[in-house]
């Protein structure tokens, strides 16, 4: 007897309509990004044309060259800001993912005194938001002597309950039997965590990587970093764009430069999620 097809297919009509809707919405989603790209390529006079256009008539790279010139004449070289931001973003992301997987594994699969309370506190903490928290947090960071260091930028990310909660939710779907049999084979807890659990929740930690890198990369750090040579790229770009050249084009060029690395990280890592599709699904 032939089994029914694995997937129940949508009708051709349904597919067509949903694709059309998706495209319509997609155009709306991309509008600001397209506008930013166009603005970064527009010469100054085109900002005053009526009606405004979504493309540059005479595209030019002058906006980018202007930004480059200003950075070239600054006391602190551009590469310094880029290094600072990359260092904080990459270190913070790696630590957040490693600490997160370990913590989430324990919180979902181990049994220990205080587990239930801790799990509840984490969810409650996730719901407590607001810039109110910035004040006590700032005082604590200064007490720890972390002000003006990368630690001040990346430590709050390591405290984020979003990562640990997301990872925990995914790890609960990993079957216990699999972990038990690994234990019987004599695998240690760290090995089980990184060699069995982590590969099984790859979509989850890749998502956490994307989100964490992005939030660290966009972190301007201006409230905790004061020395010019330690400042981060977003702070440097906003300084230049707001004071150096007061032109819409340069602003758009700056925004675009800031967006490119998170886009690269997103595209590269998101592909990893999709490629795991072939052997997707946790199997007993």
């Amino acid at each position, binding site marked *: 007897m032939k089994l029914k097809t694995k997937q129940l297919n949508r009708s051709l009509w349904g597919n067509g309509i949903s694709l059309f809707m998706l495209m319509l*919405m997609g155009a709306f989603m991309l509008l600001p990004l397209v506008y930013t790209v166009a603005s970064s390529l527009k010469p100054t006079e085109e900002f005053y044309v009526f009606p405004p256009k979504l493309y540059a008539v005479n595209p030019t790279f002058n906006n980018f060259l202007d930004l480059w010139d200003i950075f070239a004449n600054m006391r602190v070289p551009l590469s310094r800001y880029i290094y600072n931001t990359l260092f904080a973003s990459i270190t913070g992301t790696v630590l957040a993912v490693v600490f997160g997987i*370990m913590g989430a594994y324990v919180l979902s699969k181990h049994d*220990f005194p205080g587990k239930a309370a801790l799990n509840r506190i984490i969810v409650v903490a996730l719901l407590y*938001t607001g810039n109110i928290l910035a004040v006590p947090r700032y005082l604590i960071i200064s007490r720890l002597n972390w002000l003006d260091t990368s630690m001040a930028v990346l430590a709050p990310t390591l405290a984020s309950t979003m990562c640990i909660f997301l990872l925990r*939710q995914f790890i609960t779907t990993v079957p216990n039997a699999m972990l038990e049999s690994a234990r019987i084979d004599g695998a240690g807890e760290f090995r089980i965590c990184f060699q069995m659990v982590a590969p099984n929740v790859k*979509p989850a930690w890749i998502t956490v990587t994307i989100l964490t890198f992005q939030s660290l990369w*966009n972190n301007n750090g201006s409230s905790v970093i004061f020395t010019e040579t330690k400042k981060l790229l977003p702070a440097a770009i906003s300084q230049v764009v707001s004071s150096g050249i007061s032109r819409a084009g340069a602003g758009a060029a700056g925004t675009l430069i800031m967006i490119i690395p998170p886009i690269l990280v997103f595209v590269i890592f998101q592909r990893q999620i999709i490629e795991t599709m072939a052997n*997707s699904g946790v199997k007993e």
Partner: protein
Amino acid sequence: MKNNKLASRIWKSRISYLMLLPFLFFFFLLLLLPILVSIVLSFTSFDFFNMPVFVGVDNFITLFVEDGEFITALQNTFLFALITGPISYLLCFFIAWLINDLNHVMRSVITFVFYAPSISGSLYTIWSILLSSDRYGMINSFLISLGIIKEPLLFLNDPDMILGCLIVIQLWMSLGTGFLSFIAGFQMVNRDLFEVGAIDGIQNRWQQLWYITLPQMKPMLLFGAITQIVTAFSVGDVSLNLCGFPSVNNAGLTLTLHAYDYANLRFEMGYGCAITFILFAIMYIMHRIIGSLINRIGR
């Protein structure tokens, strides 16, 4: 005797504590401690310069009895959250579901397009240019050229339009964390169960979704719901950056902005903390309600 038992259980779990330690260290220090400080301060009057003075529940009484702006903020926040929260949750889910069966290239492109607004924390500020209230505003000039309107609309300055604009912009940027977690969640679904379901008499895709896919995704659905509650109720930055502060007629005032106003601009930290506490209480109740709804899935 009992103490000894607990101590030995703790000792047995030492490897668990060791693995939790790095996260717990940062969590206690930089999140839990600030939260506790903020809760304590909400029962005080504190101006940053003098020591906090304990005032009991005075702050909360003032909020509900005397502070008209707070009531406005409360109404705006609820209106905003009850519209954007559910819509963007469903959008995240259905778009993730729709693209799940497409081929690799299409999936990647569509995921990128829908996630793009969230990729930069500040990309949404472009809307202030697009919605600019003169004829040079992209949207105004487009509507004028189509003949739909004659005079430019004051999108972000007209009290009647502010909240509507903010809702649309929030929906535009709402396919973020929850969306990615749903896409990842669909990858975790065990497809072998579809065959089992087909034998058990699953008729169509909707039944497949309800009885097989969704129950497996409950943990991700809960995660998505919580992030959605937080983004929907703690809205503030969007209004601050697009409509300015204060916005015309306070039409864009939200609880987060009200707290920001008192804590950061008026140096009344205690009062600001009280507002934040109310916001937290609302989100906690919503979380309980939605959590119990998600538990019913697949039954």
